[in-house]
């Protein structure tokens, strides 16, 4: 990725004028290659060279935004093939395909259901991004009317038609909602390019399973100045899709191959019989490189699972979510309310806090600093032991706020009870359940 110093050097004036602050053009080129200096430091670089260098330093996969406000989806700008190499940056937007041939009322109900859907996981609110409206009616005015409904509901919109007239009606109706046009083909690309440019809308390119023709098409569009592209490799099966998106991602990242350096759109519903089957193929999209996922079956259980998977895959491996250590109050505890202790791994905190809340029994939740690790992991790594828990008890306000001297430890670390008794003389150590889901029952007999 990026040009080498020598290649950059060939594009520079090679006068060694030193005005950039470096002794030679070669030295400057090396610094540029290492991204330690801006090209603008050289007053004499030609316009051609500038254009070439800009193209080479642009991110390998174009960042494309669809939608506005809190439904905005940004896809692209990825730098790795595997999340463990660094992280995946821009999680895919999840859309539902709706036909414009439903009645206005039925359509409104569908839109509302999608817009209303929200779940919370590990303290984050998750929802679908929007709808992909398909021009099944064949009528531009109808299409425009349905698009307007979706845009008014605040959803991100994908306009699905191969007819320029319909697309234009949709673009007019979705002004301000930053819709995606789906899409350009060999037959209509010039007209679609015109619309994309006129309305400054991103444009999806429909492949037919062959990467060569897809690349040729994106190059033609790029030649017309349409650069905010989204690509559909055209595969709809599991193996074919996986191989196509893997090749495209590799080409962009490892070979800086521009014509396929765009975010991908996937349609897992095309071959699925029901919401469950579709959710599984959609999960391949989440794990493997999709930027926009369009589903055909709206189902809360399937969407919840998929949003959870997306959250998991797109978590930065180097920053596993943690909560701050401290003494948390769940549901207005009194001094005699139970005291539980656990680790500051986000999922642990939310699981335990959630169960305590659900029990209806107010309690104190002491979160020890386990460096963001879960109970078992932290215990195995020596980051959640008697000493640490005792320290938390003694330094986080427990002694002032809690009138009793009983502490409930997670069942998975029952083996530290003895040590903890020694670290906290006068305290009674109670071993709680191993699974958070059993906390309510445990607290009821406290």
């Amino acid at each position, binding site marked *: 990725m990026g040009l080498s110093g020598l290649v950059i050097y060939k594009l520079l004036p090679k006068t060694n004028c030193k005005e950039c602050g470096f002794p030679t053009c070669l030295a400057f080129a090396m610094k540029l290659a290492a991204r330690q200096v801006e090209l603008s430091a050289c007053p004499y670089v030609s316009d051609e060279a500038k254009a070439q260098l800009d193209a080479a330093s642009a991110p390998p996969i174009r960042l494309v935004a669809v939608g506005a406000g809190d439904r905005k989806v940004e896809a692209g700008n990825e730098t790795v093939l595997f999340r463990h190499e660094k992280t995946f940056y821009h999680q895919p937007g999840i859309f539902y395909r709706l036909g414009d041939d439903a009645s206005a009322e039925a359509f409104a109900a569908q839109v509302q259901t999608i817009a209303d859907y929200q*779940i919370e996981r590990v303290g984050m609110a998750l929802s679908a991004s929007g709808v992909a409206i398909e021009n099944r009616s064949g009528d531009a005015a109808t299409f425009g009317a349905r698009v307007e409904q979706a845009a008014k509901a605040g959803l991100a919109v994908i306009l699905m038609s191969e007819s320029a007239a319909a697309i234009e009606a949709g673009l007019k109706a979705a002004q301000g909602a930053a819709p995606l046009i789906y899409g350009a083909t060999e037959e209509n690309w010039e007209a679609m390019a015109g619309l994309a440019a006129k309305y400054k809308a991103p444009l999806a390119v429909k492949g037919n399973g062959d990467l060569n023709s897809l690349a040729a098409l994106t190059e033609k569009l790029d030649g017309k100045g349409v650069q905010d592209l989204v690509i559909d490799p055209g595969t709809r099966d599991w193996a074919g899709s996986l191989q196509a998106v893997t090749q495209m991602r590799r080409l962009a990242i490892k070979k800086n191959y521009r*014509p396929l350096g765009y975010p991908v759109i996937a349609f897992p519903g095309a071959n699925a019989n029901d*919401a469950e089957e579709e959710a*599984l193929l959609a999960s391949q999209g989440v794990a493997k490189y999709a930027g926009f996922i369009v589903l055909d079956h709206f189902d809360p259980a399937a969407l919840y699972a998929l949003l959870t998977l997306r959250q998991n895959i797109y978590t930065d491996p180097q920053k596993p979510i943690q909560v701050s250590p401290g003494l948390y109050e769940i549901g207005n505890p009194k001094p005699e309310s139970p005291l539980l202790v656990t680790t500051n791994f986000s999922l642990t905190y939310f699981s335990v806090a959630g169960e305590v809340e659900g029990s209806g029994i107010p309690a104190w939740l002491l979160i020890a600093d386990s460096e963001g690790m879960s109970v078992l992991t932290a215990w195995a790594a020596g980051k959640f032991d008697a000493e640490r828990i005792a320290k938390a008890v003694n330094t986080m306000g427990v002694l002032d706020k809690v009138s009793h001297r009983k502490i409930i430890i997670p069942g998975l670390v029952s083996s530290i009870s003895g040590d903890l008794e020694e670290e906290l003389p006068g305290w009674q150590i109670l071993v709680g359940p191993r699974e958070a889901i059993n906390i309510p029952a445990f607290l009821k007999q406290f």
Partner: protein
Amino acid sequence: MATPVPVAKETWTGKIREITLGATPAQGGTRGSTVTIGGENTLPFLHFEGQIPHRPVVAVEILDQAPDDWSPVLSEAWGDVVQDVGAWAKKAEELGADLIALTLESAHPERGNTKAAQARKTVRAVLQATSLPLIIYGPGQAEKDNEVLVAAAEEAAGERVALGNCEDKNYRTIVAAALAHNQLVVARSPIDVNLGKQLNILINDMRLDLDRILMDPTTGALGYGLEYTYSVMERLKLAALTGDSVIQQPMIVTVGYEAWRSKESRTSEGVPAAWGDFGRRARLWETMTATALLEAGANVVVLRHPASVEAVKQTIDNLMSTAS
């Protein structure tokens, strides 16, 4: 003029070992057929750049005593067959399992504390009830694991069963039993590439061949650590394919056990309406975990729900299909 699309194939220098579970009468066992896993020389399902001679397989987990704390979704799906381990094994085979994973749960000190004799009886019953190769898990407590797995290894002599789990804190006795009776082992490491490698070396140092060791990287379910397992598996697979010979082992993931522990699959009370249909959510918790880990390179997926067997096998069929 269009720039031609460059080739996007990687060249891998390593491949995953082939491991065969089960032995037919001609081979000294009594299994109807054997199951071979591994052998791939490319990343999961990238048929265009290598060979994937053996598809991933599905193991169905059965217990040696009727579970009393399972999700209602799971219990209702199996019904009364869980009262008899032989009948349960037969049913699992009928559903299309490639392997049976038998957990000797009753041997756990807190769940029955049954002994070696009971383990032998159970293993014999299951071997008679099903023609599929077996994975045999202890109850997950070191002393009891050793006791019952030694007995199981002996009882299943000649059958090429996989004994689980060998962990760094407890592996010697199980490996010795595997050596004595020509069995295989499952080596479980705590989501860590180096610890996984180390455990394989320790086991191999005891003279158990590497083609008798399945790697279990420890499974986190969807929403409960999945991404940790997913990434450690991708790292293991990449290291294996680039020549690290000690970790070129097929991987096994215990999806059923982990997925059915989650709140999502266990309860429909006091959960948000947006969580949707209980049964569908519970099944998806298992099948979506399985799908993600297949994409990360799982060679054996251990499942619990009957419907998951078909769904995951269909997914595997789809991923192995090379016809567009």
